[in-house]
């Protein structure tokens, strides 16, 4: 069974049809790239999956239909995401941002928290340790106690990536994680993505404009244009597909 299956996903805002009949399925430990020109509806697909937009059609997570559930419910099931502009909590430190990502996993209640009872303290320590593992995995040790607002944009994006990972998701939705990163940071990101795939076995839906990265890393591609699926398959075949070339890639003119 596929980890995540999307069937005939359609999204309308009034008279505007943003997505029409998009279908695909992602397997465990699969790196599934979603590409297409600006305005094709890539981010809308992610917003529908994470419950921020009300799409029509079925979205199944491990066989369970999740369309119509509230966003925080979907996040708790194990679908985490990053955002195009990082969208971190600027007043918090990196470690606090990641701890916030673990919100749904922390088992305390406000009454116990008021008195910071022993169980609250134990939970905080446990989850701080879990956060440290992520910090170690994503190599953010230098920054763990730095307020996010003081970090350069590239690092902020990586922190957003780490925050999604801190949720211990089954599926990771990555919305242009490489945009705004410099070459070194991109290489780091590619390494993290591959380690997540191989070591953690998390399925990833990855929106990306860097075609070199997509061709090198992704297992399968899905191409959108004006809210419709144009092609799907392995990078080798899809990137040579004449429809994809005319819709998105364009021809090299020398």
């Amino acid at each position, binding site marked *: 069974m596929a980890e995540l299956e999307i069937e005939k996903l359609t999204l309308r805002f009034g008279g505007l049809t943003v997505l029409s009949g998009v279908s695909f399925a992602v397997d465990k430990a699969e790196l599934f790239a979603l590409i297409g020109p600006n305005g094709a509806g890539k981010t809308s697909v992610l917003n529908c999956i*994470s419950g*921020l937009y009300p799409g029509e059609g079925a979205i199944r997570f491990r066989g369970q239909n999740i369309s119509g559930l509230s966003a925080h419910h979907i996040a708790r099931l194990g679908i985490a995401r990053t955002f195009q502009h990082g969208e971190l909590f600027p007043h918090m430190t990196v470690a606090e941002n990641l701890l916030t990502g673990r919100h749904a996993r922390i088992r305390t209640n406000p009454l116990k928290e*008021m008195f910071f009872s022993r169980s609250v303290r134990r939970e*905080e320590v446990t989850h701080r340790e879990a956060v440290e593992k992520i910090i170690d995995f994503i190599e953010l040790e230098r920054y763990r106690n730095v*307020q996010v607002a003081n970090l350069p944009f590239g690092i902020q994006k990586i922190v957003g990536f780490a925050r999604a990972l801190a949720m211990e998701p089954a599926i990771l939705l990555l919305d242009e994680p490489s945009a705004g990163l410099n070459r070194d940071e991109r290489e780091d990101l590619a390494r993290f993505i591959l380690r997540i795939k191989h070591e953690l076995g998390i399925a990833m839906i990855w929106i990306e404009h860097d075609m070199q990265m997509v061709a090198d890393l992704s297992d399968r591609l899905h191409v959108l244009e004006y809210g419709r699926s144009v092609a799907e398959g392995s990078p080798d075949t899809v990137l040579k597909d004449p429809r994809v070339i005319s819709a998105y890639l364009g021809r090299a003119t020398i």
Partner: protein
Amino acid sequence: MSSREPRASGYFRSSYDQGLRLIETRMQWTALMLFLAALGTFPFIATSFQLDLACQVFLAAIGSIALMLLTGYAGQVSLGHAGLIAAGAFTAGILFKEFGAAFWITIPAAAVVGALIGLIFGLPSLRLRGLYLAVSTLALHFIVVYLGGEYETKRGFSTGIMIDAPRIGDLLIRDRKIWYFVLLAFAAVSLLISLNLLRSRTGRAWAAIRSHETIAEALGIGVPAHKLLAFVISSSMTAVAGALFAYYRGFVSVEAFSLFLSIQYVAMIIIGGMGSLLGAILGAIFVTLLPYMIEYAVGFLPNARSYAGMLAAFNYAAFGIVMILFLVFEPQGLVGIWRRVQNYFLLWPFKQKPLGGSRK
């Protein structure tokens, strides 16, 4: 949050538990003990007037800490604070007058009433934001004050409800010195509860909601539930402050809870510094003492007597000017000034903090 950095040089944490402590170093313990000793000796050297000021500051501090949780941390604007204080005061007053209820019943009752009102008047926050939410909380103020006024006139207490000095066991709380310690204890407990909430899951969820509601939702935070929780906890604390206020004054009447009181509380958290509990306390001190400082200053003017009648007008004007000055020149409030002074001495003889990447 940033107040949890270690201060002493050469101090390194060796466990995560250490990072959770409110007080980490021996220096901080010493400072706290000295501060507590100063608070403990104050009533024995202060005049009765100064004691009254201190009690007023403690009452205001409970209210401003509560509002800071709601507005400064959870990001929900409220102009209904005076209404909640009134609700607490009337709960205590009515329970005392009608049933002769004791202090240990009326205070928890005020907390429960506050929590319920918070739950109901928190509901608009699920749909409204910012200014619109503020206007909806105004309704709370007018409803409570109207109901309080109705009670007063219907029951024939049109000048207000008199409340006897409360009693805890055999201890009659009438003397200002005893009041000082009782109110100090309540303020300290409010502060501790708030500190604890803010360093755990709920506090982070509030901060997340304040910066990005959608993102918070996508991280698995139940945004509506946490907003309501902020309203419930803040309102409950405020109502307790109101009940204490009623006992302290020995008297409840609607006139004490004007809209200006709500604005004063908003001023406390702005002048003190948004998003800081220390700011809430500094703001409470500043706003409570401001009228007295003005009165004192006016006393030095030539022909001081002739200004006596205009003092109220002076107060309002000065209040407005101070608010504007803070918003324009020190948006981080008193706590911003405090941090700058602190940094100056911490960094001396250097001027700048090291840039991101190293320890803050």
